[in-house]
């Protein structure tokens, strides 16, 4: 495999009134496990069902009900861990995080504080400019999601929907390795991409299936390097945690706002209170949710209803052996095997469906660069116009490959190819047959072209004179010949003949 190398990106620097500041960001990403049933019950995880219709007795916290671990969710967490090049802990355990809220029927969330299922890993976050940050993963643990409280349906009452209660989440905890708002967004996007490849999370941020808590602090230049050398957090600033962000755009805006807020306080001689904050996208600001003093005492302790989770290395190995090709590897292969640019390879591997589409086109058309151009420029452009997804493309990879093959064989020109593509896109059909049926084939018969050239030269003596004085004007003849042949003449042949006949 081609080894791609990147420069380390520069940390984002914000100029304060007095001096420069750098950002330090760590994230806790909550990814809903893609599974049919919940982490500890057989209830469905289907989104959008009637309120309280996907609720097992255990999800509702009924007396005497007990959790039973869903093996598939465990496999998904292991798969995700392997995808993030992380250590898999063969023995992990579940703990109870105790707090009261109506959408938490048991009065505790089952989570993994002390012994998470996945240990340290890392993610390569490309910034698209030849730089990339390696973000270290501290851990991934499995936990239950809470239900949904609805406070705006009635002036006096609150409502609770337990459909989401008990759905499996993976909490992916990073080290404070992220150094700017763009990196933060790119990190989440990369995690999302990897999990989509793995099939372990559907990545739907709008539905809250992927959301992030962002820890932000600021420090003076040089302080972060001292932290790196010593792993001593005291070199870093006090952090604030912005909860529950479910949009890449908001993540960036919130971090930017929060950093500037902290800088303003520090430069005015104040100190940062460690606290939990919420981002208000309407006002574009973060506000305090609860201070450290108000923080819950969750009284974590091992859940006595569940035995420690023990998995076998052979089982992990089997999952590892069946992992799909991941984005980094696929991108490197596209660059190495098909000669694509880093940019094109990134675009094509951003989405697994697009990458798969592209690979079918290449396999049938045999020209990587050309296939990449057509997929990225023509197909993506056309789909974007229709706001359609690659999976809904009216042009199949085989059809697109057919178009490309016709260009390569010289049967059609690039210009005709675009017309042909539009016909295939809107009307469907086999490209070769369309070209045949509609007489779109490029004319390479020099006799026919020669006749057309001769005719135009004969009819336009004035232009011939001008062209002889200024050979650049020969293009006018080429255009006329193309027009006369309905665009089907091979432009190279026309050019050759015009030049020869005019004696240029």
């Amino acid at each position, binding site marked *: 495999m081609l080894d791609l190398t990147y420069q380390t990106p520069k940390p984002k620097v914000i100029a304060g009134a007095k001096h420069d500041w750098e950002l330090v960001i760590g994230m806790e990403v909550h990814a809903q496990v893609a599974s049919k049933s919940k982490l500890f019950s057989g209830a469905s995880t289907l989104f959008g069902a009637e309120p309280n219709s996907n609720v097992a007795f255990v999800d509702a916290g009924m007396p005497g009900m*007990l959790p039973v671990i869903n093996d598939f969710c465990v496999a998904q967490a292991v798969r995700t861990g392997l995808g993030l090049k992380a250590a898999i802990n063969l023995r992990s355990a579940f703990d109870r995080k105790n707090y*009261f809220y109506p959408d938490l029927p048991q009065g505790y969330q089952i989570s993994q504080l002390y012994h998470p299922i996945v240990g340290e890993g890392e993610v390569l976050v490309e910034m698209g400019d030849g730089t990339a940050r390696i973000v270290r993963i501290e851990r991934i643990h499995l936990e239950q999601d809470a239900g949904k409280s609805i406070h705006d349906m009635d002036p006096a009452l609150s409502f609770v929907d337990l459909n989401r209660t008990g759905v499996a989440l993976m909490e992916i905890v990073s080290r404070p390795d992220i150094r700017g708002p763009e990196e933060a967004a790119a990190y989440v996007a990369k995690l999302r991409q990897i999990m989509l490849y793995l099939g372990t999370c559907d990545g739907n941020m709008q539905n809250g299936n992927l959301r992030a808590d962002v820890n932000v602090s600021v420090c003076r230049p040089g302080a972060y390097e001292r932290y790196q050398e010593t792993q001593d957090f005291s070199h870093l600033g006090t952090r604030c945690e912005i909860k529950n962000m479910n949009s890449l755009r908001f993540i960036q805006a919130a971090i930017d706002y929060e950093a500037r807020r902290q800088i303003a306080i520090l430069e005015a001689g104040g100190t940062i209170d460690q606290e939990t904050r919420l981002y208000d996208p309407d006002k574009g600001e973060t506000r305090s949710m609860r201070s450290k003093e108000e923080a819950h005492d969750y*009284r974590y*302790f091992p859940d006595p209803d569940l035995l420690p989770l023990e998995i076998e290395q052979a089982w992990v190995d089997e999952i590892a052996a069946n992992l799909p090709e991941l984005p980094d590897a696929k991108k490197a292969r596209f660059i190495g095997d098909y000669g694509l640019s880093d940019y094109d390879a990134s675009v094509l591997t951003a989405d697994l469906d697009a990458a798969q589409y592209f690979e079918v086109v290449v396999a049938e058309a045999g020209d990587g660069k050309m296939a990449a151009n057509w997929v990225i420029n023509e197909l993506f452009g056309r789909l974007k116009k229709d706001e359609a997804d690659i999976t809904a493309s009216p042009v199949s990879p085989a059809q697109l490959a057919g178009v490309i093959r016709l260009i390569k064989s010289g049967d059609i020109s690039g210009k005709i190819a675009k017309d042909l593509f539009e016909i295939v896109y809107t009307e469907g059909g086999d490209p070769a047959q369309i070209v045949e049926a509609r007489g779109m084939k490029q004319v390479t018969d020099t006799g026919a072209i020669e006749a057309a050239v001769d005719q135009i030269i004969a009819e336009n003596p004035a232009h011939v004179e001008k062209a002889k004085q200024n050979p650049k004007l020969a293009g006018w003849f080429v255009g006329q010949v193309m027009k006369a042949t309905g665009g089907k003449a091979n432009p190279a042949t026309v050019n050759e003949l015009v030049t020869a006949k005019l004696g240029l």
Partner: protein
Amino acid sequence: MSDLTKLTIAEARDALRKGETTSVALTEACLAAIDAADALGAFVHKTPEIALERAKAADQRIKAGDASGMCGIPVGIKDLFCTKGVPSQAASKILEGFRPEYESTVSGRLQDAGAVMLGKLNMDEFAMGSSNETSVYGNAVNPWRAGNSDAALTPGGSSGGSAAAVAADLCLAATGTDTGGSIRQPAAFTGTVGLKPTYGRCSRWGIVAFASSLDQAGPMTKTVRDAAIMGAAMMGHDPRDSTSADLPVPDFEAMLTGDIRGKVIGIPREYRMEGMPEEIEALWARGREMLADAGAVIRDISLPHTKYALPTYYVIAPAEASSNLARYDGVRFGYRAKLAQGDGITDMYEKTRAEGFGAEVRRRVMVGTYVLSAGYYDAYYNRARKVRTLIKRDFETVFADGIDAILTPATPSAAFELGQTFDDPVQMYLNDVFTVTVNLAGLPGLAVPAGLNAQGLPMGLQLIGKPWEEGELLNIGYALEQAAGFVAKPAKWW
């Protein structure tokens, strides 16, 4: 047949199979006895319709020759078990009106075996207590009385209603649960047999949780044989309980040979407590002699961490309880406090839980919350977990040294008067001193009635067995029962 309610499970089973009686007749006799025994406060929800319906079905099965040992046997079910469509409120106000949509695995197994549920039995609220005085239904009363006294005695707790009902012949047997001694102590106080199986033998699914790592259901019966029959029907793997053991359940009754020759019985020196009544000391000595006479080898042993068991238990059990009881919040089921205008969710929680839980439950929830809180977790909960491991190791060591079972007193005294220790929680907790170690170590324990004290009150001995060896434990208990020849019954006053 007369006195149907006095039959043991084994006697009733044999009579049913011979056609000498019917389950309907047994059930009707029990229902009449229950109706005449309100003074005992044992049954708190009577289910005569369900009982007669199941009795009829059982008679059909018996006729068809398709009947297990428990088929047609009228039993009482502790209120801690969720029983479908029948009030199941753990003797707590907070579960007022709660009728589960599901049947606990254990009561469901009994039902499937053809046992007949007569109703729900009194207990301490959420199984927290040793005298059945914390129940929202009021006290259960011991059918036994001391000497010529009329004073009401405790049947023990938390399975006090179960013990009283079996001792008073209101049912042939009952289910109990045991977190720190809640089967064995009431059995000892009422002259009945109580088996707490190895942790993991009986599914906890559908039993209202008190302390999940300690809770275990078991039978409360008139004889050891009955405990073998009913225990086997209650046990077995349940995939709905992750802590349930996937092990076969042997035919315990077939193992009751009474032959214990060569079995090595350990006598733990740490169970000789300061201030233990002489009659308990004497009972223990007699138990030793009886087992020795039956051919067992008696050996003194040491379980050095015994003295830490009670404090360890009273950290771990409340810690788990504080979390297990968080679900009783007034949101989805059971009791919800009346709220004042402007009250929010926190008010609802606070009022509901303050009004819905009794004093002992509130005390344990607060203790449990405290020992799990930041800054105290290591000092209390974590340390208690470590000590628990040491207590368990004590037992593993003696079993590895060839001990087959351990003999101890079941309780530090005979039944005491209701109200006597109710206001002194620490005194109350001392009732569990001989039994909690067994829960902490997850071992099977059996209480067998072994004699009467000077006031004519029953006293019990406890046998502690090796994990999963209930069969052997029951056989040793059977030998002890044979030797002790305990046949006394309380004089009927109710």
